[in-house]
C-alpha cells in the first residue's frame, strides 16, 4: 500500500547526496491571489498527494522541509521563482515535477528542476535581484523617468511608525531590451532578505513622483520574471548557487 511506502521514506536516511530538488515554478492567474504562507501549504499538500517523500523538520512542531527563494506577494504572478524541497530518498527531478504538477491547483507549475545536495547557502540567502514586468496603460515612460531621479522618498510603516525611506538605490536598471509596447516596462530591482523593493511600493512611488493614475497603478499586472544572485550587473544563475 502506498501509505506505508511513503512513511518509510519519510524518515530521513542520512548522508544522501542529491536529495534536494531545486525547482523553478510559475504561478499565474487566480492562484496568484493567495498569500505566501498559503502557497507553501498548497505545495506541501500537492507533494503529499503526489506521495513524494518530503522530509520533515525534527522537534516539537515538525514542518515540511521546503525553502522558497523569496516570498511572493498577494496578486503578483511569477514565471521564475525557486523552491528547494528536501526528500528522504533521491527522486529524479523530472519524475518529481511530473507527479507534483499533476497535483497542483490550476496556475501553479514546477519546471526546470535539478537534483542537488543540501545547499551550503540557503536558497533565501542567495537571492539579490529580481526582474519584474509591469503591465499598465502607458507605464513605460514614467517608470523610466524614475531612473533619472537622485532620490525617491516613500513612506513606509515600520513597527507602527511611519518612516521615510529612499528607494532609489533599490532600483537597479531597466531591461537591456525594453518591450516596444509602451504599456509594458521591465526592470531589475533589489530583492532578497537584505535589500528588497516590493512592486506595490514602486507603483506608489510612480504615482507620487510621476502623477501616474492611482487606479491604473492598482490595476497593474505585475509579473516576477526571474530571480538572480550575485551583484548587479554581474548577476548569477540561482541554479548554480549551491
Amino acid at each position, binding site marked *: *500500500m*502506498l*501509505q*506505508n511506502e*511513503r*512513511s*518509510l521514506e*519519510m*524518515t530521513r536516511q542520512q548522508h544522501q547526496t542529491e536529495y534536494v530538488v531545486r525547482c523553478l515554478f510559475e504561478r499565474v*492567474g*487566480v*492562484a496568484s*491571489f*493567495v*498569500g505566501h*504562507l*498559503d502557497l507553501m*501549504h*498548497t505545495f*506541501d*499538500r*500537492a*507533494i*503529499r*498527494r503526489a*506521495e513524494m517523500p518530503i522530509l*520533515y523538520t525534527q522537534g*516539537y*512542531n*515538525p514542518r*515540511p522541509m521546503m525553502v522558497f527563494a523569496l516570498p511572493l506577494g*498577494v*496578486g503578483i504572478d511569477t514565471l521564475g521563482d525557486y523552491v528547494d524541497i528536501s526528500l528522504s530518498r533521491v527522486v529524479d527531478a523530472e519524475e518529481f515535477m511530473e507527479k507534483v504538477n499533476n*497535483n*497542483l*491547483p*490550476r*496556475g501553479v507549475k514546477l519546471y526546470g528542476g535539478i537534483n542537488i545536495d543540501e545547499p551550503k547557502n540557503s536558497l533565501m540567502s542567495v537571492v539579490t535581484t529580481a526582474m519584474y514586468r509591469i503591465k499598465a496603460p502607458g507605464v513605460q515612460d514614467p517608470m523610466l523617468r524614475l531612473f533619472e531621479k537622485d532620490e525617491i522618498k516613500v513612506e513606509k510603516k515600520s513597527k507602527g511608525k511611519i518612516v521615510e525611506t529612499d528607494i532609489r538605490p533599490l532600483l537597479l536598471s531597466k531591461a537591456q531590451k525594453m518591450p516596444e509596447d509602451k504599456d509594458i516596462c521591465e526592470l531589475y530591482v533589489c530583492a532578497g532578505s537584505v535589500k528588497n523593493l516590493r512592486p506595490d511600493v514602486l507603483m506608489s512611488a510612480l504615482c507620487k513622483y510621476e502623477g501616474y493614475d492611482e*487606479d491604473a497603478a*492598482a*490595476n*497593474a*499586472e505585475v509579473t516576477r520574471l526571474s530571480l538572480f544572485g550575485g551583484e548587479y550587473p554581474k548577476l548569477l544563475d540561482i541554479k548554480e548557487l549551491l
Partner: protein
Amino acid sequence: MNQVKISRKDLMSVESPGRYVGGEFGSVIKENVLEQLEKTGTCKEVRTAFCFPDVYEIGMSNLALQILYKCLNDMEECWCERVFSPWVDMDAVMRKSNIELYSMESKSPLKDFDVVAFTLGYEMCYTNVLQMLDLGKIPFRTKDRKENDPIVVCGGPCAYNIEPMADFFDLAMMGEGEELIVEVTKIIKKYKDEGKKDRKKLLVELSQLEGVYVPSLYEPVYEDGRYVGLNKLHESAPDTIRKRIIKDLDNVPYPTNPVIPNIRIIHDRAYLEIFRGCIRGCRFCQAGFIYRPVREKSSETLCRQGIEIEHNTGYDELGILSLSSSDYTGLKELTDGLLEAFEGRHTSLSLPSLRIDNFALDLMEKVSQTRKSGLTFAPEAGTQRLRDVINKGICEEDIMKSLSLAFAGGWSTVKLYFMLGLPTETMEDVEGIADLARKIEKLYFDVCREQGIKARRPEITVSTSMYIPKPFTPFQWEKQNTKEEFLQKQSHLRSLLKSKNIKYIWHDVETSLWESVLARGDRRLCDVIEDGYRKGCFYDAWDDHFKYDTWMETLTEHGLTWEMFAKGFDVDDEHLPWEHIDVGVNMSFFKKEREKAYREEITPPCRTKCSACGAQCFKVGECYAPK
C-alpha cells in the same frame, strides 16, 4: 456566456482576495458544459449553484457542501458550482462597482443558474441568504419569480422549520440530501428540456417527492395573533412532509476527493463522518432528535475511506466527525487502523466529542503528537436534578472519575460547557455550576498530592451559553428566559467564579434572544427579516455585525414582539408552525419526554433500551439492533 469580471484593484482592495477567485484543486469544471455555454450561451445540463450563506472559510469547512457537490457533479446531467457570501468589504465593493454575485468555478452570474441551492446550518445566516439573492439579482420572493428565474431551494437543519424564510424559497428539502437532491435535479432537468414552461406545475410535481416541502402550496392561518395551522392551496400538496434519511451509509457517495482550498479555512483538515444520529436524546438537543435513528458506517469502509482521503487531499489532519464519537461501536478498530496506516506520515487524527474515559485518554495521547490538549466536558447543567431534567446522562461521579484519571495522566486543562436558562432552572442550579468548577479545582490539587505530581496551575474554563428552545425537541413548547433573567444568572455566576484557576466565558445574550425568535418563528417573520436586511442587517452570526436593536425595532414595526415567540406554546391547545413536518420522532413522544423532564425522570439511550420514539418507521439502524 456571461462571466463576471472584477478588476485587480477591486480584488486587491479586500481582505483575503483568495476567497473570491476559485481555482482550487478538486474543484469541478465540466468542460463539455462550458463549451456549450461559450458557443450557445446555454446548455442541456442543469446548472446548480450551491450557495453557502457565510464566508468562504466557513463554507469550505462544511461537510454537507462537499458531499452534495460530489453527488451533483457525479450526475452527468448536472454541473454544480459553489457560491459564498461575500464578506462585508467585498459586499461594499460589489455594490459600488456593480458586480453581480458569481460562482467560483465558471464565474457565471448567480441568476444564470437553473437551481440556486442554499444549505442552512444556523438561523443567524438567514439575512445572508437575502444578501446573496440581492447581489445575484434574483427576486427575493417565490411569488415574484418568473419561469426563467432560478429555482431557489434549501436544505440543512434549519429547513425543518423554514417558516420564517418560507416566502423566499421555492422549496425546502427535509433531511439527508444525497438521494433527494438527485431526484429533484432530475425533475428540474425535465422542466429545462421542455423549455421551462410552467413553474407552478414544476413545483407541484416536486412536492410529490418524499421530503420536499413547497411552502407556496400552503397558507398559514392565524387567529388572535396565534398560529393555528396551514391551509393547503393545492389539492395534491401532501398533508405532512417526512424527512429523508440514507439507509445504507456504507454505500452512499462520500467525498474522498473534496475541493482543497488554496487559502486557510476554519477547519483546515479532511473529514471522515463515522455515523449519523445520536443514541442519547438529551432533551434540549435538536440534533439528537432530527438525525434519528443512529446509523453507523462500518469500520472497514471508514478505514478505507480515511486512507483514501488522506492520500487524495494531502491534508496532515483527519477529523473524525459525529455527534458523539465515543458511541461509535467500532471506534477502537477504526482508530487503530488509521493510526497504523498513518504511522510516520505526519498525519494526525482529531477526535472532538469524545467522552473522557481510559480509552479516550489513551487515544488522545496517541493521536496528538505534541502537547497534551485540553479536556472537554459538557455537563450542560450544574446540578444532578437539572441534568436529569434535560436527560444528560452524565453524573458528577463520572466527571470526577474521568478527571482523576486525566489529572493523574498529566492533563491540567479542562473546559466545561453549560447552558443557562434550561427549563425548571433555579439559582441553585446556577450555583451548582460554580460548585462543580471548584470541586474540579480541588480535585486537581488532591490528585497531584496523592500521585506525587508537581502541581501546576490548572486551567479550568467554564463556558455558558444561553438556552434556546428548538423545534423537534421535548422542550419545543418551553418559554425562553428573558434578557434580565439571563443577565442576572450570568452576573451571579461571575461573582461566584473568582478563582485564579477558573476562567469564566459567557456569551452574548442578545444574539440568543433573536436566534430563539427565528428558531420557533412562523411566516410573519418573512417581512421582518426582509426589512431588517434592508436596514443593513446581515452577517448576524458574527457578534460584531449583529444589530439587536434594529431587529427588536423591526419586530415592533410589524406588530410583533419578542415575547410572542419566546413565551412558547401551550402544549395542549396550540399549534406549532412546524407540525406538518415529520422527522420520524412523534409529537406524542416529545410530549411524554417533556412530562418526564418535569418529573426529573431520565430516558435511557437507544442502545440500552428503545423508547419507541417513532424513528423506527425508517426501518433501519439502532432501532433494529439487538439490545
